[in-house]
């Protein structure tokens, strides 16, 4: 009775209206439709579904129609809402609304305005589908759908080859992940005979560990694709080719966290596959460190935040991997706040600098864009884990859990936290402090952009107090008991953050020559990191190039044209060769034909006679 279908359908209607009629609509109408639909959806979630639900162990479940049925296998278009979903719904619709509002300002001067909002609305539709799904297949619909929208939005500036290439890369890499996810689904069907969450999770504890491990690992592949984990993270930095609101919404706040959501959703399976859990944690940790190191060297402001996103997602996976699902979700939420803010702020900065993204051409913007400066400071504090900010709580929860799991993970996490604080604040200093190094005169963004920033700034700072996710989710993911070292651990992580901030202050405000010197000193290592460890190039050389060259040279030209067609044509030419010999009999001389005929009939007569044909 809560009409759950309204939640995704409202943005979808927005998509249809803007997509089909958008070209002829005035901008105001487009804005109204785009923002209105998402806002309506948010309000429906927040005001109707949320409060009036009976939140017990039960969850809302709605079955709309059977989508695929074959034999005894049925998959329905089912939605379900529980607390986890509720949190995700709030994040997606809430932040989505803010970013939509922001985008009306940011995209004001861009072409394809209606198209942009149509895509955004479509994204909302799929994302909500993903979140609302009551079975894996519907989740997969959303999963692929958001990938589609990601592709469309990354390639929004389709005149730029780099943009469309990045879009392709995103989609294809995601496909690799989806492949894993799909395989996981197949195993689930084989094992459980259904894809609905309820029966699967009910039966999961009784299933063999090997199967569960396989399922979990395959899911991890899917999640790694979507959430940009090693080894499938490569698409995310490139995805920054899309407009900045897209980066904020899709590539920071919502879509990329779908992997975390899925793992949390499948917690039962993961919990019964400890080996898989370890792998999740390791991958998360590795990604966190790895991306952080790259983030330190980048100069493109969006790339910095992109690697930061990768790194933070690694944190979340660390949380999931060590069993702290609720901490992961918490960090997911806080990260949504501050990273969206960071991106939107970066967008505001880019807006201020007339599209410039290189931080070396910025500087001193605190004069020209004070509000932006303030909100970005808030976000930066949050991500650095400054005590009291939202990031502080969630990150601390994860690190604590990691310490319980394995202390060395904690220490790596702390170092990463320090690095995070360092590169985020490095970006902050480079952008707002010092002298303006760019061209033109920077300006502050309009109010329509700043307002959402402020809302997000408040959430970044206060989100930790406002939403205590582990508490909310304690039905699903039981709280861990307090451990004695907790306060000490908290202090260490805070200290790491502060050290990072201080170092960046020293290197980019006080002693500006130092970074160059260090870079020179490190030499090759620096260049390696600066080139993102040349992973893209390695992938190109190891996978893409051989595949294309091999397909072209070996499969197409050799196997297809050479061997198969060659064999077929060879049969033909052999037949012709035989014919060339046999045609000597075909001398054109009728008498010789007659001779052959007679000789042949003699043979036939003899054969028939011997075989008893003549009687």
């Amino acid at each position, binding site marked *: 009775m809560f009409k759950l279908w309204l939640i995704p359908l409202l943005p979808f209607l927005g998509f249809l209206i803007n997509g089909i009629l958008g070209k002829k609509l005035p901008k105001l109408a487009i804005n109204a439709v785009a923002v209105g639909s998402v806002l309506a959806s948010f309000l429906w979630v927040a005001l109707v579904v949320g409060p009036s639900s009976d939140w017990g162990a039960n969850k809302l479940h709605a079955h709309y129609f059977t989508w695929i049925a074959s034999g005894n296998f049925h998959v329905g278009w089912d939605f379900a809402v529980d607390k986890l979903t509720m949190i995700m719904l709030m994040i997606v619709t809430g932040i989505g609304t803010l970013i939509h509002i922001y985008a009306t300002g940011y995209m004001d001067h861009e072409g394809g305005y209606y198209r942009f909002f149509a895509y955004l609305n479509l994204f909302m539709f799929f994302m909500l589908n993903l979140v609302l799904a009551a079975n894996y297949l519907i989740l997969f619909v959303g999963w692929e759908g958001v990938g589609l929208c990601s592709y469309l939005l990354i390639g929004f500036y389709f005149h730029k080859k780099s943009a469309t290439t990045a879009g392709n890369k995103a989609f294809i890499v995601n496909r690799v992940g989806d492949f894993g996810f799909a395989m996981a689904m197949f195993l689930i069907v084989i094992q459980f005979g259904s894809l609905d969450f309820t029966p699967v999770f009910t039966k999961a504890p009784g299933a063999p560990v090997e199967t569960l491990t396989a399922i979990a690992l395959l899911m991890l592949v899917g999640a790694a694709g979507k959430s940009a984990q090693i080894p499938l993270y490569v698409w995310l930095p490139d995805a920054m080719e899309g407009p900045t609101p897209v980066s904020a919404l899709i590539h920071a706040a919502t879509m990329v966290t779908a992997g975390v959501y899925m793992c949390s959703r499948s917690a039962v399976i993961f919990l019964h596959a400890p080996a898989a859990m370890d792998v999740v944690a390791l991958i998360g940790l590795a990604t966190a460190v790895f991306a952080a190191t790259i983030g330190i060297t980048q100069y493109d402001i969006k790339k910095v935040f992109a690697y930061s996103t990768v790194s933070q997602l690694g944190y979340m996976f660390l949380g999931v991997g060590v069993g702290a699902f609720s901490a992961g979700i918490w960090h997911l939420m806080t990260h949504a706040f501050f990273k969206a803010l960071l991106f939107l702020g970066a967008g505001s900065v880019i807006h201020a600098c007339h599209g410039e993204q290189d931080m070396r051409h910025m500087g001193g913007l605190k004069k020209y864009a004070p509000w932006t400066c303030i909100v970005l400071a808030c976000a930066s504090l949050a991500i650095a884990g400054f005590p009291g900010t939202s990031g502080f709580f969630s990150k601390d929860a994860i690190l604590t859990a990691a310490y319980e799991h394995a202390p060395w993970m904690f220490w790596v996490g702390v170092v990463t936290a320090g690095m995070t604080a360092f590169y985020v604040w490095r970006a902050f200093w480079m952008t707002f402090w010092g002298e303006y190094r760019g061209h033109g005169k920077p300006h502050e963004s309009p109010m329509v952009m700043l307002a959402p920033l402020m809302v997000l700034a408040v959430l970044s700072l206060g989100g930790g107090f406002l939403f205590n996710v582990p508490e909310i989710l304690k039905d699903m993911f039981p709280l861990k008991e307090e451990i004695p070292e907790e306060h000490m651990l908290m202090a260490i992580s805070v200290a790491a953050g502060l050290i990072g901030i201080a170092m960046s202050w020293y290197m980019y405000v006080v002693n500006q020559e130092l970074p160059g010197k260090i870079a020179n000193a490190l030499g090759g290592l620096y260049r390696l990191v600066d080139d993102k460890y040349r992973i893209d190039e390695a992938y190109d050389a190891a996978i893409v190039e051989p595949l294309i060259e091999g397909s072209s040279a070996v499969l197409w030209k050799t196997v297809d044209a050479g061997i198969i067609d060659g064999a077929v044509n060879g049969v033909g030419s052999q037949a012709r060769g035989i014919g060339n010999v046999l045609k000597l*009999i075909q*001398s054109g*001389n009728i*008498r*010789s034909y*007659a*001779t*052959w005929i*007679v*000789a042949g*009939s*003699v043979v036939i*007569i*003899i054969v028939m*006679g011997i075989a008893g044909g*003549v*009687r």
Partner: protein
Amino acid sequence: MDPLFFLLFAFIAVACGVNVVLQKHPISSALSLVAVMASLAVLYLLQGAEFIAMAQMIVYAGAIMVLFIFVIMLLNAGPEETKGRSWAALIFGVPAIIGLMGALAYFMQTGMPELGSVKFGDWKGGGAYEVGYALFTEYLLPFEVTSVLILIAIVGAIVLARKEID
């Protein structure tokens, strides 16, 4: 009487048949062939095939062979040239003929089932009435088909033989 007639006309048939092959001039061959056909017609008569015997005379001897002679005369064909190029016919021809004859002879000798005998007048099923009846009832379709065949042959012959109109 029958064996006598048979032997007589069989002898004529074989002799003239050999003559067909041996004669150098096509006219001689053609006339020998006419003789073969005539003697075969007699042999048909001996077997009670009156209608076919007459048809043999009218169609074969009276029409087809006249056509042959007509063409030979029209082309003023002379005796045969002796130069030939068919190596296959040269090498395999005679053995093939002997082989054919041998095979036929052998299998007729060994494999021939018990057959009856022919005496003039002991079967009268080959008259015009019987043949005609069968032709227009049971064998109507082949009959009609052959009529079409003849028509086609006529048209074809005219097309082939007419002088080029240009």
